[in-house]
């Protein structure tokens, strides 16, 4: 009796809590766990997304209050030849970079998977670049691409009597040069994922195929590649999104003329960065981010569609 009243006095809320059913208690726990995350996702993800759409319809420039200008930013963007150049550049990174990086990483993963001698060591060689800071290694590559007597690649070429290449100074070679750096940086990740996908294929399939007398090539075409499709689709999308959002390498390899020479290496994200944080045309930059969002959304939806037909 005494202990019961002491308990009630010490924790008056305890009685209310005790009246709830076990089910209700668990629901309350669940919402308690979710309370802070809901505030976070609402305030730091959803509200800013809506705000970006709204800002894209204004002429906000950080100084004066934003005025609604309708679709003026979009009209300006679609009439801007620089935007279309950037658009082409961005897709050049994607359309050339993704297939090359996927084919190279698959070939390496396919053979590396069978290697037993020093397997971990060789895997580490391929994986190391992925762990390095993109901004730091972009400078190493920038140095590689310098003309003689500084640049390593031109120094190497000249020992074989091959003429000097301008690389980052040329309007034709700069984008492929940056792309090589970017492929190099992401290759290790793709190799590891492909190897995980290869391991996940049950060995009974291979044994059955060998019993049926299928050769290496036939096994690759009829068993490995079809069963690897989810992994491949994941990597196509992951790599595409990576190239569509390329920034660190381009920014660091062209600091003297960002996106140059003559804007031939400038991707969409660098244009957004310059419009927003160099010219402070926040409204115009927001419109560019909406375009990026739309492109990425289409790529993600394509992935879902491809995997549905599995």
């Amino acid at each position: 009796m005494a202990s019961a009243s002491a308990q009630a006095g010490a924790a008056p809320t305890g009685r209310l809590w005790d009246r709830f059913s076990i089910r209700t208690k668990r629901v309350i726990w669940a919402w308690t766990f979710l309370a802070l995350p809901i505030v976070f996702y609402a305030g730091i993800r959803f509200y800013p997304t809506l705000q970006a759409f709204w800002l894209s319809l204004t002429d906000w420039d950080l100084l004066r209050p934003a005025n609604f200008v309708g679709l003026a930013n979009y009209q300006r963007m679609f009439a801007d030849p620089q935007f279309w150049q950037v658009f082409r550049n961005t897709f050049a990174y994607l359309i050339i970079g993704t297939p090359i990086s996927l084919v190279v990483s698959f070939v390496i993963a396919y053979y590396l998977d069978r290697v037993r001698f020093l397997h971990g060591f060789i895997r580490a060689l391929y994986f190391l670049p992925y762990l390095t800071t993109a901004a730091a290694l972009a400078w190493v590559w920038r140095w590689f691409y310098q003309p003689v007597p500084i640049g390593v690649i031109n120094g190497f070429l000249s020992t074989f009597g091959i003429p000097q290449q301008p690389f980052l100074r040329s309007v034709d070679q700069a984008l492929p040069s940056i792309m090589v750096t970017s492929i190099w940086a992401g290759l290790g990740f793709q190799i590891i994922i492909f190897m995980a996908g290869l391991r996940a294929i049950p060995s009974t399939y291979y044994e059955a195929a060998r019993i049926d007398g299928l050769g290496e090539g036939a096994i690759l075409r009829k068993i490995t590649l079809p069963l690897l499709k989810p992994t491949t689709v994941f990597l196509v999308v992951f790599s595409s999104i990576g190239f569509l959002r390329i920034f660190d390498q381009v920014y660091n390899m062209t600091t003297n003329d960002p996106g140059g020479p003559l804007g031939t290496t400038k991707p969409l994200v660098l244009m957004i960065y310059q419009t927003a944080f160099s010219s402070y045309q926040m409204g115009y930059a927001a419109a560019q981010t909406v375009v990026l969002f739309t492109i990425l959304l289409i790529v993600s939806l394509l992935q879902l569609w491809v995997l549905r037909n599995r």
Partner: protein
Amino acid sequence: MSTMAAELPQNRSRIRPGRIIAWTLLFIGGLIMITPLLYMFSTSLKSASQVYDLRLIPAAPSFNNYIKVMSDGRFLRWFLNSTFIAVVVTLSNVFFDSLVGYTLAKFRFRGRYFIFLAILSTLMIPTEMLVIPWYLMSAQLGWLDSYWGIMFPGMMTAFGTFLMKQFFETVPDDFLEAARVDGLNEFAIWWKIAMPMVTPAISALAIFTFLGNWTAFFWPLIVTTSRDLYTLPVGLSSFAVEQSIQWEMIMTGAAIATIPTLLVFLVLQRYIVRGVMLAGLKG
């Protein structure tokens, strides 16, 4: 006898010349992959007059560049900034992503599916679209040029939540039910019973979040203006621009920015590779 015959061709196929050629090509490819790293370290040990000597082994290696670059304490400061930010963001992600993933996997309540879809849908929103509103928000709340300003956007991620939810779904309900009978509250059940059962997922999430934040460039570049608050990648970039054509100094800076992640990899190689595989397959 028949098993012998079946094993023999397999054994022979392991030492086929094709295998040796494939191994050699893979090895050479691997060396090419780390050539930029080797040249970076090699040049960081050369003096300004030796930079044009492209031999990989420096004629007179010295740590003078490292002493020069480290002497004013900038790199140490940036290193500590990056470490602090990456650690705090990682702890936050391990805590909240797990808590939300667990709640969505193990509790039945109305709105559960809606919350899950809402969080998952944020995967579709690119960071680049949010930086302008984040910048505006930071300016209004005084978060610009502060540690919190660098950290706040990444404190929880949909990717981590999804990963943890997948793993918590494999935890049998019986264990949680037994703990409930023992009188543990729901928070204690999650923290003491469920969390220890998904440690591989937690380490994968921790490694990913740490590396991602340690090497992050875009948002820290935007939100920081004072040199003391730069992260290592942003600091290195500004340092390299300042050094102009002193490549041995730039390579030293790049090496300093790279060494910590390489050390972490050497120690945790097995966990990192496994973590990447786990996250890649589940995510």
